[in-house]
């Protein structure tokens, strides 16, 4: 068994794992990232997809708002193509009165940080103006405050961070699980963790040695810690989202549920999502299910402000676990969204750090903090560059007009190219080059985005794609209205050509997953779509 020595071994390929891997690699540390399944497959993949400026911290921690807004600006600058602006209406039941003035003051204070994140100042809309903007809202609403935040595709964010890490020398092992840890005793009675034992997807065992090992496994943190013999207590909380087939509105809405929690209906890329719930979770993070009740809870709340919501087409639901820091006595919503780094030296294990808590928006800050600590321990004097360096694709910005020209010249649909740009930024030049050499790769595989064959091939080659699920995360293939009806099979054929995967198994697994995400709320055209799928693919794989 080969035993390579790394400076840092990161367990967990979510947004923190990828962020730390990038930071470490940029600072010249020899980095290894190990992920049990696929990048961004856990908590990060179930996020609301927003990099927000920390609006609610104005109530109790102003500095955090400023830092969050500033960091939102950094993330935006590192990959401007990846983010899309979401103008949001904070809906009000009363237009005048003390509450309205308090609320406006709150947004006025938030305006001070808008420039940090390239946001716009708030506006205050009268009832008439709100209905002019969105006639579908419920008649009892009296006005709204508006502000904006940035939306982001968390999967692409992880992949781009990972790509940058790899470009700077990091090694990535996906579909590889850490099964055990290696220790050596030290003179003072404490143990030093010197490495990990992993098992790859084909069953082989391998040892890797590292000077420092980071536990960034999110909801799986307590399990891993238990293996090591230390303890990190978390208060895991489950949250679900509902996805629609298109943008119901270009504006987001914030409203409240039956138990006074804040929820939203937001545009997300070319769909809309409703989110989210927050419930203590005691189950297995590998086995999550969205329940019918959770979906009804969210729909009922949105229905109050957008009465026709149930007429719109739901194409899926997804669930995730927040690895919230432990605290007894509070309601789930009120728990801190802060993060904490646990240095297990105090518990007798050197060289092992855990970071838990936090949110998607603060990933870069958290990564910087942890990497600073790692560098301190390893006596490396490099400074953080992740707030300055662009992510792959971000160094080459292309304007809308230029994109349209490129589409014309390449004989591609302009919309397909703009969606491609939103995922790859300047990296589309590589994909366009593939198309130049192989014009038949202009073929549209998935109509939902649309996703071209060239992008599918590029992602399989460059972005660690091993299954249709992985491909879905990279390109959103099969994630739109069709839910894989026409695209799963041709995509599986390409996967077979490049990676030797069995197309029958890939298609079956992919369609099973789509069905599972639809089951909690299946109605209207989504039933017609599933019936079509059942009819076409139900018996198409017999020998």
């Amino acid at each position: 068994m080969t035993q390579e020595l790394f400076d840092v071994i990161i367990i967990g390929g979510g947004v923190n794992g990828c962020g730390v891997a990038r930071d470490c690699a940029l600072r010249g540390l020899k980095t290894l990232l190990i992920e049990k399944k696929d990048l961004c497959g856990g908590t990060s993949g179930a996020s609301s997809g927003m990099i927000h400026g920390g609006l609610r911290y104005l109530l109790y921690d102003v500095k955090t708002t400023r830092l969050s807004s500033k960091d939102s600006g950094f993330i935006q600058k590192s990959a401007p193509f990846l983010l899309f602006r979401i103008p949001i209406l904070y809906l009000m039941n009363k237009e005048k009165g003390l509450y309205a003035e308090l609320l406006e003051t709150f947004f006025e204070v938030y305006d001070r940080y808008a420039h940090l994140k390239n946001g716009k100042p708030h506006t205050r809309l009268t009832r008439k103006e709100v209905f002019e903007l969105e006639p579908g809202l419920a008649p009892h609403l009296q006005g709204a405050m508006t502000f904006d935040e940035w939306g982001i595709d968390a999967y692409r964010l992880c992949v781009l961070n990972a790509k940058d890490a790899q470009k700077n020398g990091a090694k990535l092992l996906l579909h590889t699980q850490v099964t055990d840890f290696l220790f050596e005793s030290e003179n003072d009675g404490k143990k030093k963790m010197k490495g990990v034992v992993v098992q790859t997807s084909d069953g082989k065992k391998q040892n890797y040695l590292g000077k420092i090992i980071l536990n960034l496994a999110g909801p799986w943190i307590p399990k891993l810690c238990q293996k090591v013999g230390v303890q990190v207590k978390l208060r895991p909380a489950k949250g679900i989202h509902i996805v629609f087939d298109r943008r119901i509105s270009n504006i987001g809405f914030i409203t409240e549920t039956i138990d006074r929690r804040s929820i939203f209906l937001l545009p997300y890329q070319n769909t809309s999502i409703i989110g989210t719930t927050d419930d203590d979770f005691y189950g297995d993070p590998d086995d999550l299910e969205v329940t019918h009740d959770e979906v009804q809870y969210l729909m009922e709340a949105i229905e109050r402000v957008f009465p026709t919501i149930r007429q719109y087409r739901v194409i899926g639901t997804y669930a995730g676990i927040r690895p919230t820091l432990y605290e007894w006595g509070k309601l789930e919503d009120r728990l801190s969204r802060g993060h904490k780094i646990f240095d297990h030296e105090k518990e007798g294990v050197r060289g092992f750090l855990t970071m838990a808590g936090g949110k998607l928006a603060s990933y870069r800050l958290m990564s910087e903090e942890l990497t600073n600590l790692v560098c301190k321990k390893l006596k490396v004097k490099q400074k953080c560059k992740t707030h300055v360096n662009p992510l792959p694709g971000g160094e080459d910005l292309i304007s809308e007009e230029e994109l349209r020209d490129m589409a014309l010249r390449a004989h591609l649909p302009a919309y397909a190219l703009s969606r491609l740009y939103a995922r790859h930024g300047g990296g589309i030049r590589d994909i366009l080059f593939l198309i130049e050499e192989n014009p038949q790769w202009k073929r549209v595989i998935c109509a939902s985005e649309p996703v071209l064959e060239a992008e599918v091939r590029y992602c399989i080659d460059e972005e660690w794609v091993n299954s249709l699920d992985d491909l879905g995360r990279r390109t959103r293939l099969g994630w739109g209205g069709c839910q894989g009806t026409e695209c799963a099979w041709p995509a599986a054929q390409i996967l077979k050509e490049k990676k030797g995967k069995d197309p029958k198994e890939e298609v079956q697994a992919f369609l099973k997953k789509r069905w599972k995400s639809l089951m909690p709320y299946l109605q209207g055209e989504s039933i017609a779509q599933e019936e079509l799928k059942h009819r076409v693919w139900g018996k198409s794989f017999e020998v």
Partner: protein
Amino acid sequence: MVVIGSGLSGVMAALRASSQGKKVAIVRKGWGASALTGGIFEIAPTQGEEVQFSSILLDLKQKNSYHPYHHLDLEMLSTAFELFKKFFPLKIQGSYTENQVFLLDTGFFRRAAFAMEPQFLDFRTIGRKKVLTLGTDFSWFQESLLLPQMLAKKLDHPDEVRSLAQRLKSKSHLNQVDLLVLPPVLGLDFFSDMKRELEHLLGLPVFESVATIPSVPGLRFQKALDASLRKASIPIVQGKVQSFDHHQKRVTSLRVSDELETELNETTLEADTFILATGKFFSGGLRKESVFWETVFHLPLFFENEKINDCPPQKLLKKKFFKSQPLFQCGVKTNSALIPLDEFGEPCYENVRACGTLLQGFDPAQDGTCFGVQLLSGYKAADI
């Protein structure tokens, strides 16, 4: 008689009624699942041994007591099919007693009793013949990329077929091959002629694989169904049934209009009998929003004789997608005369008949009996 729905069972019912001298019209708001058939048709889910009708029923009685075959007489299958073939312009080949094995465009196989002409290649008879099958990524086929429907239209022209033959000759070792199987795109309206032309140019028998999606054979089939109606002089009324009048358990008339421009063209259709052949969810015969409902006459819907709106969601949806889903087996409950019944077993309307995939008790996609049910129920429904 008015038939609602122009899929296979609706057309069969209309043709039967017309051949009995009745004045028939067919109403439809669009095409449905029949227009997406892959080109093969199923009667019984057997593995290839000779099928005795009595043994199918026995098997079904044991496994599924709600299957429509309990109401239908399998002995009538050939009579119904012969009547259908009198009007249907395309060749459908096969057997009433055994299933053949057909190749899908995914490279897998499926058993069925009948197939349309280009798909009719029973792989049990291949023996030692060398078969060249060509895939569905059309880069070898053409320079620009067309959706299958557009490619099929293009290949309706002999020049294009000649050009295809040239490309095939230059790219494949056709001299070593006994049989050629192409993806199902060889022409849309003139596919019979184009197949013959290609066979002539290549000197080889040419067949097509069975389609998945999109389906050109499905388009050919539905267009042929429309042609059968024209041949039998059965008018097709384009529109959706918006409402209906009824009196003392009889439906008296339907109000039909173009769903999307309701101000124009509202027609009222009166008839002695109404036949419902509207299909399941895909074609819009059934729908669910907060509850399930049958979209024309609001007939109660059942799964295994239990009212579907009383079933808890877990009962209707199985976790494993590829298993037979109760949701896709639900439908209208009928008596032996195919009159829809309510939960008490009483007829909902005495002059309404239900046929086709609208019926409860079978999964048209999964249990291998779809064509048999459609033909026989359509034939029987017109028996007044």
